[in-house]
C-alpha cells in the first residue's frame, strides 16, 4: 500500500490557520522576531557564508581586499590630513585607522542590509520564511570584514609597538555594542527600502555626512576648542551623544590611548548608555520590520 500512513501524517507540521483579522501586538512581534532568528540560526549561517563567498569570489585578490582596503583608506586620510593640512596629532595613521575600521564595518553592513530584502525579491514571492533573517545575516556577515580589518590593525600596530596595551582586549566589548546599534539600524533600512527604493542613494550621502560630523578624523575634544561649539553648547552635547562619537572615542581609547602614548580606558558609562539605547532601538525596529513584513511580497 501507500508508504504514507496516518502515523506519518500526524508527525507532519501542525495545522496552519491564517486569518486576515489577526494583528499581534508589539511585544508579540518582538518575541516572534527573536524566535524566528533563533529557530533559523542555520539559515542565517548559510546566508552569511553565501555572502562571504560572493564578496571574495569575483575579485582578483579575494579576501585580501578586506585587509588592504582599510589600509589604503588610511593612507588617503594620512596624506590629506597629516601631510597637506599638517594636523599635529601624533601617530596619526593609528589614530585614523581606529575609526576607519569600525566605520567600514558599519557602512558595509548598512549598505548590505539596505538591499538584503529587495535582493531576495524572487524568493520572497515564492516561499514563506521569516524575512528578518536577511538583515540579520547581512549585519552578521559584516563582522567577518571587521575581523579581517583587525589584521590590518595588527600590521600597523607593529609600527607603534609602544602604544600596544592590554586594553586591546576590550575591542570585542566595544564591537558588541556597535553590533547591537548596527542591527537596529539595519532592520530599519532593510524594511523601509522595500517601499522607497532610493533609500540607498539618500543613505550614501547621509552616511558620508555622519562620518565627517563624527570624531573620526579629529578627536571629540577638538570640537570643544571650536568657537562655533562654544557658542552653541547644545550642539556640543548632541555631538557627544552621537553613537559614533562614543564608539570612535572608545575604540581610539583602547587602540591609540592618549595622544602622549599612555594607555586609556573607554568611557564605560557612555558605552553602557549606548548599549541600552541600542537594545531599545533593536526592539523598536524589530516591531517596525515585523509590521511591514506582511506587505513585502505584495510590494516587491
Amino acid at each position: 500500500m501507500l508508504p504514507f500512513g496516518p502515523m506519518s501524517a500526524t508527525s507532519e507540521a501542525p495545522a496552519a490557520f491564517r486569518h486576515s483579522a489577526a494583528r499581534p501586538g508589539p511585544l508579540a512581534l518582538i518575541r516572534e522576531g527573536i524566535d524566528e532568528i533563533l529557530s533559523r540560526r542555520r539559515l542565517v549561517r548559510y546566508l552569511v557564508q553565501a555572502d562571504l563567498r560572493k564578496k571574495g569570489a569575483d575579485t582578483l585578490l579575494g579576501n585580501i581586499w578586506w585587509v588592504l582596503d582599510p589600509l589604503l583608506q588610511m593612507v588617503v586620510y594620512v596624506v590629506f590630513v597629516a601631510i597637506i593640512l599638517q594636523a599635529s596629532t601624533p601617530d596619526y595613521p593609528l589614530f585614523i585607522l581606529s575609526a576607519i575600521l569600525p566605520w567600514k564595518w558599519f557602512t558595509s553592513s548598512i549598505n548590505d542590509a539596505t538591499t538584503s530584502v529587495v535582493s531576495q525579491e524572487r524568493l520572497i514571492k515564492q516561499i514563506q520564511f521569516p524575512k528578518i533573517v536577511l538583515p540579520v545575516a547581512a549585519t552578521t556577515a559584516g563582522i567577518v570584514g571587521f575581523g579581517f580589518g583587525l589584521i590590518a590593525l595588527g600590521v600597523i600596530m607593529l609600527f607603534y609597538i609602544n602604544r600596544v596595551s592590554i586594553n586591546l582586549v576590550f575591542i570585542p566589548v566595544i564591537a558588541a555594542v556597535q553590533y547591537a546599534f548596527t542591527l537596529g539600524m539595519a532592520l530599519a533600512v532593510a524594511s523601509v527600502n522595500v517601499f522607497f527604493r532610493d533609500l540607498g542613494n539618500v543613505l550614501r550621502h547621509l552616511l558620508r555626512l555622519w562620518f565627517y560630523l563624527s570624531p573620526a578624523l579629529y578627536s571629540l575634544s577638538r570640537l570643544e576648542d571650536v568657537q562655533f561649539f562654544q557658542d552653541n553648547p547644545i550642539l556640543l552635547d548632541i555631538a557627544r551623544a552621537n553613537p559614533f562619537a562614543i564608539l570612535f572615542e572608545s575604540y581610539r581609547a583602547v587602540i591609540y590611548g592618549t595622544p602622549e602614548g599612555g594607555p586609556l580606558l573607554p568611557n564605560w558609562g557612555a558605552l553602557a548608555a549606548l548599549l541600552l539605547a541600542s537594545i531599545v532601538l533593536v526592539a523598536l525596529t524589530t516591531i517596525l520590520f515585523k509590521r511591514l513584513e506582511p506587505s513585502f511580497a505584495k510590494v516587491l
Partner: protein
Amino acid sequence: MAANAPTLVPGTQHAIEVADLGVRYSLRFSRKTTLRQSIAQVVSRQRIEEFWALRHVSFTLIRGESLGVIGPNGAGKSTLLQVLAGIITPSEGAVDVRGHVSSLLTLGAGFDQELTGSENILLAGAFLGLDDKVVRELLPGIVTYADLGQFIDAPIKTYSSGMRARLGFAIATSVDPDILLLDEVLATGDADFRAKSKQRVIELVKAAKGIVLVTHDMNWVTEYCNRALLLEKGNVVIEGEPAEVVRVHEEHSARRKAEKQAELGTVAAAAGPLAR
C-alpha cells in the same frame, strides 16, 4: 497521536479551506516607488488606488485531491498560490491550510549563483525551514533525481536553465509535502524531464497529498486534476469537473478573442477613412 489518526484518513478531511478570501493591493507602493513620488503623491493629494487581486473566493480541497487553477493572465492565479503558501496575508476572509506546504512556485528562484548545486540544496532546505539533518538525508535523492552528475559541485551560474529547473523541481517535490503548490512548472525543462516530472506529480497525487496546480496546459487539467477552478479578474467563475471548467474557460477565451478582434476591426474601420 492515535487519537488524531481517524481525522487524518485521506478523503475525510480537508487539506485547504478558503472562505470568502480577498486580497487587496494598494497601488501606493509598487516595486519602483521612490521618495520623490511619494512626496509628490502626498503634496498633490493624489487618490491612492487599490484593486482586488482576489475577491470572494471560496473553495475546499479534500486530501488527495488535485486542483487545477486556470484562467487568463492577471486573473489572480499566482496570487491565490501565494496566499495558500502563506506568502501573502489575506485582506479579508480566512484561509485554513492543514499540513506542510511546499511551494517553489517558479522553480529555481532563490538559488544563489555563487553556491554549488549541493550548497543550494542545503540553503533551499534552510529557507523552507527543514531540519539540516533531514536535508542532508534527502540530498543524495535530490541529486540523483535532478540528474546533474558532476555539475552538482559546480556553481549554479554554470547551469543551463533546464538544469536549474530540474534541481528546483527535485527540491520542491522531495521535501514530502502534504500540500504541493505548483505554478507552470511543467513547461520547463526538456521533453524527457517533462515526462519524468509528470510521473512524479502523479505519484504525489496518488500518495494522498493535496496539490494545487496553476497551468495553461488544459491537457494537464483534464488528465491529472480531479477538480478545476476557473478564475477571472479575481473571482471564481466556475469550480468543479475539470472537463466542464476547461470547456467554460475555452468558451470565455474564444469570446474574449472575438471581442478583441471586433474591437480591432472597429478601430481599423474608424481609422480607415481618416487614413485616406
